[in-house]
């Protein structure tokens, strides 16, 4: 299927000029099919550079990226075709909408794949369904929708390619809380129903704690931590020292522990905290 294997990946921007900068270095990872992975790291830690290697938008300075066993940079064709397999949703994707209607914009990807009309229509309906865009909006101009709706149309445009791997760069940035919740629910539903691998770049530790089965923390272009949310959030001091935060529930649990309340380690969602506090109080 679409297992991702990254070997010794390194990328240098503007190589050979005074502006030369190593963005990522020495990254080796294996992401099996179907995992829900959160990529954490502060601005400039290399996570955006990293995800652009996974669909061959950027070519490695050294190292390899394999998707489903094939080196995606093998030749021009694999570099192009890997885009159907690995769908990448950029930050603020609503700024890339350009078609006259919502339907046509979602259909842009499938059309580039060279699919037939019926197949395209089926995929557009399916993708719109995943992100909760109603069919009555299909003939509207995407530029006249609300911010949250635009974002969901843009995500549908990538989902419509039915990628085995879906990567989203900060999908909830700049949305109101209701919009954030809805988008995260849409993504989780897509992952459950399609069995796709999902990678989410995020600054929101609560989202990451809630949705992801695995967290990869980037720092200065390297992988600083890689593990389950329990493992990663049980090292709060390290996280804070590289400029990240812990989920609100973990922070609160730390404060409570400092006050002498006996709480178990590895608390990172509100539900876990609530359960632990209830247990301590004996109810």
């Amino acid at each position: 299927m679409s297992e991702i294997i990254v070997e010794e990946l390194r990328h240098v921007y503007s190589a050979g000029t005074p502006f030369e900068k190593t963005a990522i270095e020495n990254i080796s990872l294996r992401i099996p099919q179907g995992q829900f992975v959160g990529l954490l790291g502060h601005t400039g830690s290399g996570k955006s550079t990293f995800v652009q290697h996974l669909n061959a938008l950027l070519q490695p300075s050294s190292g390899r990226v394999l998707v489903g066993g094939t080196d995606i940079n093998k030749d021009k064709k694999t570099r192009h075709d890997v885009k159907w397999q690995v769908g990448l949703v950029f930050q603020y994707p609503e700024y890339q909408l350009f078609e006259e209607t919502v339907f046509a914009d979602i259909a842009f990807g499938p059309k580039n794949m060279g699919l037939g009309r019926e197949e395209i229509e089926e995929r557009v309906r399916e993708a719109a369904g995943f992100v909760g865009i109603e069919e009555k909006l299909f003939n509207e101009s995407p530029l006249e929708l609300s911010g949250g709706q635009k974002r969901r149309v843009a995500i549908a445009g990538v989902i419509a390619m039915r990628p085995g791997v879906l990567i989203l760069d900060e999908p909830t940035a700049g949305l109101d809380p209701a919009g954030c919740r809805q988008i995260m629910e849409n993504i989780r539903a897509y992952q459950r129903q399609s069995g796709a691998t999902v990678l989410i770049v995020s600054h929101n530790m609560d989202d990451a704690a809630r949705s992801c089965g695995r967290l990869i923390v980037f720092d200065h272009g390297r992988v600083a931590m890689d593990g389950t949310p329990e493992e990663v959030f049980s090292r709060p001091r390290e996280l804070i020292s590289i400029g990240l935060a812990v989920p609100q529930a973990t922070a609160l649990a730390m404060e409570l522990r400092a006050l002498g309340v006996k709480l178990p380690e590895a608390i990172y969602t509100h539900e876990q905290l609530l359960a632990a506090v209830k247990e301590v109080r004996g109810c």
Partner: protein
Amino acid sequence: MLKDITLGQYFPGNTVIHRLDPRTKLLWVVLFIVGLFQANGWAGYALVLLVTALVMALGHIRPKNIFKGLRPMLFIIILTAALNLFYTSGTPVRPGWIVTWEGIARAVKMILRIVLLIAGTFLLTYTTSPMALTDGMERLLSPLKKLHFPVHEMTLMMSMALRFIPTLIEETDKIMSAQKARGADFENGSLIQRAKALLPILVPLFVSAFRRADELAVAMESRCYHGGEGRTRLKQLVMARRDWIALALGLLFLAAINVLRHFGL
């Protein structure tokens, strides 16, 4: 790739050249270009070359940076040189050849002229911030205000355009990546197909440019911007002694070129 365009780039520094008043530098560039086009003998070209090298040394601008900026012009330079090389009549280098000694001389002079022309203007933008440049332009053109020419508005538009070039380049890069991720193909296909493929870039780019323009207008109005009338500046342009000396040297340079030209050197 798009980011590598050096057009109009500014290299911050604190050399004599950087400290000169932008008006002085603008006038110098005018004098320099006039001198360059008046020079017709080898001595004249040597003088222009010498002046350029001197300014580069004083401004700490490396030849490498000039040559990097020349790269987009390479085709025009080669074409001009080739035309002059093959289409100048005179004594052939060897009997029967089309290439003449006069042709070689003219080709070299044309290359020098284009390279020096570009180098001169690059030295201006490399050592003067866009802000200072438009300020200087505004002051130099201010006599035109008497003729109701909107000098302030024009220079404001210029500085905004300069300010937004890098932003729009970055934006274009981003939109291109996003559309490529959806399988858009900008490199293959016929001319018409490729022109059509630009649509997914141009529409979002225009939308965002208008949005930015709108936001900028609101930001300016909320800070009570009301045009150039009665507006004061944080940084006043002052002509120092070095500026007058530089201008005197500029006139001397032009005079020297004309003397050389008079004697056919």
